[in-house]
């Protein structure tokens, strides 16, 4: 539909605007009214910005370990120095508690380390090719790896903040890639099932029913454990992605099939058939555009399940393995309840999982409501 010219647009009253709006505009207006969905979308944009530019948000190498800095608590930032805004942290000294022999860290109040935003640190490449050395947070006059521990450190003395940034990258990307694979499987099989019907439909529906009635975690655990131990990170990454995407496609296929079946009986499809359109043209020119919004909603709602699957598998030690970093790998450190009581900050990555999953659910709900013209 053509956009009305700018001069005319101001004269058109609201109702007329609705009458000439495209389907996408209507959806967008409805989506904007959904506050939670809006909040979810903003949170997700932030997460993906972190995922894309993890090098910028992290301030040290996430793999750099140092036994001398094991299990440090998150470090408070002092925002004001003598009345003006000059954030700094105190330098920390590790000592042994004479009674319990536990390592304790005491701030050395005579040494202030100033913090700079967008300061210089380790060099890296933005998105893999533009070299840069600025980071969101950097310190002045000391090495970041020796002085800055915003979220504390893990058992091996690796900085949790930086690890969380890289973990976000892996986990959010795995969610996207596996949902894409599921989508391909779901749309193709669901589309075939819904469009052709008959015995093909019956077979595909039975396969879906069978897959849905099998408890997934034990099965995927078995498959993941059968991956050869000598594979490198990239191979394991892809294998896990594929294993996870095998869970999600059934729901998507169900949605696509339902849409195909209900659309097949619509008048405009019959009209297209009578006009002699080819099957491909009917499917891609007439049917797909009218249910694509529903697919987007179903896809958005499928991503959190993927993220949780990856986190669960890695948490068990069967998914991604160190040195790869993902939310699940980070949470492996939180498995031991005794360690957790001494260093509760190891549980922080679970907050990231919960927030991301909630945000996806809110956004997906918003899209689903917006896509429903009768809602």
């Amino acid at each position: 539909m053509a956009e009305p010219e700018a001069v005319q647009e101001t004269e058109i009253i609201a109702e007329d605007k609705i009458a000439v709006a495209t389907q996408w505009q209507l959806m967008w207006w409805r989506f904007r009214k959904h506050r939670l969905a809006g909040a979810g979308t903003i949170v997700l944009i932030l997460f993906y910005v972190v995922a894309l530019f993890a090098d910028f948000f992290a301030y040290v190498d996430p793999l750099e370990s140092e036994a001398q800095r094991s299990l440090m608590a998150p470090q408070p930032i002092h925002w004001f120095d003598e009345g003006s805004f000059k954030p700094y942290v105190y330098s920390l000294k590790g000592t042994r508690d004479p009674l319990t022999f536990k390592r304790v860290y005491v701030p050395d109040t005579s040494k202030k380390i100033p913090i700079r935003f967008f300061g210089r640190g380790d060099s890296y490449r933005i998105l893999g090719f533009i070299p840069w050395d600025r980071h969101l947070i950097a310190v002045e006059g000391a090495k970041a790896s020796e002085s800055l521990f915003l979220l504390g450190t893990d058992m091996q003395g690796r900085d949790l903040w930086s690890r969380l940034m890289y973990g976000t990258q892996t986990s959010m990307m795995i969610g996207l890639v596996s949902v894409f694979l599921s989508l391909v499987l779901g749309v193709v099989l669901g589309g075939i099932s819904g469009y052709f019907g008959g015995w093909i439909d019956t077979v595909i529906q039975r396969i879906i029913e069978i897959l849905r009635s099998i408890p997934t975690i034990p099965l995927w655990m078995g498959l993941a454990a059968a991956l050869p131990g000598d594979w490198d990170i990239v191979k394991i990454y892809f294998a896990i992605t594929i294993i996870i995407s095998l869970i999600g496609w059934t729901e998507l296929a169900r949605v696509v099939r339902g849409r195909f079946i209900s659309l097949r009986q619509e008048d405009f499809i019959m009209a297209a058939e009578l006009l002699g359109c080819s099957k491909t043209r009917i499917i891609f020119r007439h049917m797909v555009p009218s249910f694509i919004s529903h697919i987007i909603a179903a896809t958005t709602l499928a991503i959190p399940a993927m993220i949780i699957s990856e986190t669960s598998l890695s948490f068990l030690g069967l998914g991604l393995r160190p040195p790869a970093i993902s939310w699940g790998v980070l949470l492996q450190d939180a498995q031991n309840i005794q360690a957790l009581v001494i260093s509760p900050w190891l549980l922080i990555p679970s907050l990231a999982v919960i927030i991301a999953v909630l945000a996806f659910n809110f956004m997906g709900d918003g899209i689903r409501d917006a896509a429903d013209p009768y809602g």
Partner: protein
Amino acid sequence: MLAYIVRRFLLAVLTVWAISVLSFMIIHLPPGDYVTSYIASMSASGSAVSEGEALALRDQLGLDKPITIQYLKWVALILQGNFGMAMEWGRPVSDVIGDRLTLTIVISLAAIVFTWALALPIGIYSAVYRYSLLDYIFTFIGFIGLAIPGFMLALIIMYVAFAHFGANVGGLFSADFAEAPWSLAKAWDLTKHLPIPAIVLGISGTAQMIRIMRSNLLDELRKPYVMTARARGLSEYRVIMRYPVRVALNPFVSTIGYLLPYVVSGSIIVSLVLSLPTVGPLLLKALIAQDMFLAGTIVLLLGVMTVIGTFISDLLLMWVDPRIRLGRQ
């Protein structure tokens, strides 16, 4: 009605077959055959396996035959109740799994009972008092329940209980009863330990169920027959409980078929965190030690158990829903 039962039964059989193929795949995916790794693990633990024994074992499993024959032989052995040996334990798989499978069933059922007991009243309340304060609160809690994976909730509960109350909420039995033979006292001890695993496992299912129940009932409440009932002066309680709730219950019952695999799945990983004596920790150990016979058998038994549960829920659905019982779809 008979056609419905037969169809469901055939589907269940088909599903069991699919599960058996997948379990067999898991057993055979890792490199090397079972007998070689069995001999290796036996000699590592000090007991040697003689040539003759190894040959007999190979023959029994048909390891020199094509993969389809191997599959058939494996199925034949299982039908005789012979699940093979668990290497790490040096005992038959059925011995090792025994009680743990029962406990897995007990926990899964407890979680489903919890889910129902909570979701039904809350769902009805939320639909009847739509957009009330409590409805919003339940919706919010429901969203959180959906967003927190079971194992994470388990971790958080363990942490809070341990750090603030000094209590260890893991396990299914007190120390006194862990190794004791079954008795009434032990069963009571188990009942006391059940709520936390049941809540952890049930919470996300509960959240889903509340949403399903709420939207189903909302659809029903808008229908003219409800207005008619009100117009004729029925009490509000009867108006709602007599018909709309009954109709809204049907999709609710049918989802139990999906709830069960979900709960069984979740129980595996939650058991690990809460150190429950179910098959979960056993499965993980077996997988890490590449004891594929044990692992494959656990996957198989869990799958079959779920299929039986789903089949029972199908029968239940038939009992609740006259449209199915009377043969109209």
